């Protein structure tokens, strides 16, 4: 039987897979941060779906809130690092950065 909980869990898993795929597929640090955000979306949706259908979903809501704050903080630090990398190397391509470093 297909329930809302199952639909959200499957969508969360697909989002995590898409984020991982995009992280390995792209050659741009901005796109890597965006892929990380998509993975966080998937994790949030899967965590939220785990609390559906129960009397109280306080634990799931708290975990999602934790995940939102940690995800936002990590992205802020990552974007600051991207600005520094761009100032230093003039590109956001990780392969090009590795070549310029040597």
């Amino acid at each position, binding site marked *: 039987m297909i329930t809302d909980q199952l639909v959200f869990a499957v969508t969360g898993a697909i989002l995590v897979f898409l984020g991982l795929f995009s992280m390995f597929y792209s050659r741009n640090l901005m796109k890597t941060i965006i892929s990380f955000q998509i993975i966080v979306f998937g994790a949030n949706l899967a965590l939220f779906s785990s609390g559906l259908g129960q009397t109280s979903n306080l634990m799931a809501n708290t975990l999602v809130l*934790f995940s939102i704050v940690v995800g936002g*903080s990590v992205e802020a*630090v990552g974007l600051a690092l991207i*600005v*520094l990398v761009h100032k230093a190397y003039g590109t956001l391509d990780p392969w090009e950065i590795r070549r310029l470093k040597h």
Partner: protein
Amino acid sequence: MAGEVALLLCAALLVTVIAAIFSKSISVTIIMLFYASIVLGIIFTIYQGIVIGLVHITTFAGAVSVMLMTVVLMTGEQKLDIGNRTFAAIIATVTALIVAASTYSLFSGAPTVSQTISPPPVSILSFIWMFRQWDLLILIVIFAASMIGVVNLLSKEAKE
């Protein structure tokens, strides 16, 4: 049977995320991600997670989208080179399978929580303040640490 609303919202979420991933322009990617954040916030809000829905929209559709646009303005529109698609698909599949298998093995032995010992439902706006005070403190510390890190990184850049 799953509700049509859930299916529709999940379809909208997947479409916006796929458009964000495969877009050639980073600006379009950010706009699609903005829409995805709003759709996810609506899902949380509809299914009785009003607080986290609002926090999600404020954080990701508000703050993070503005930060992404600011970084694009500072660094310019970079050319989006594409890597090896097959290699990425294989690596992502293997990683997802490992994560799924480890998650299953972690939680398969966990006892199922009985409905009778669940805490009683509380009003929506009091959940974290009533039950999880330490979590709120930890969240504030994490957020403050990341902000200090960002300020340090950017002030170092200004000095140089």
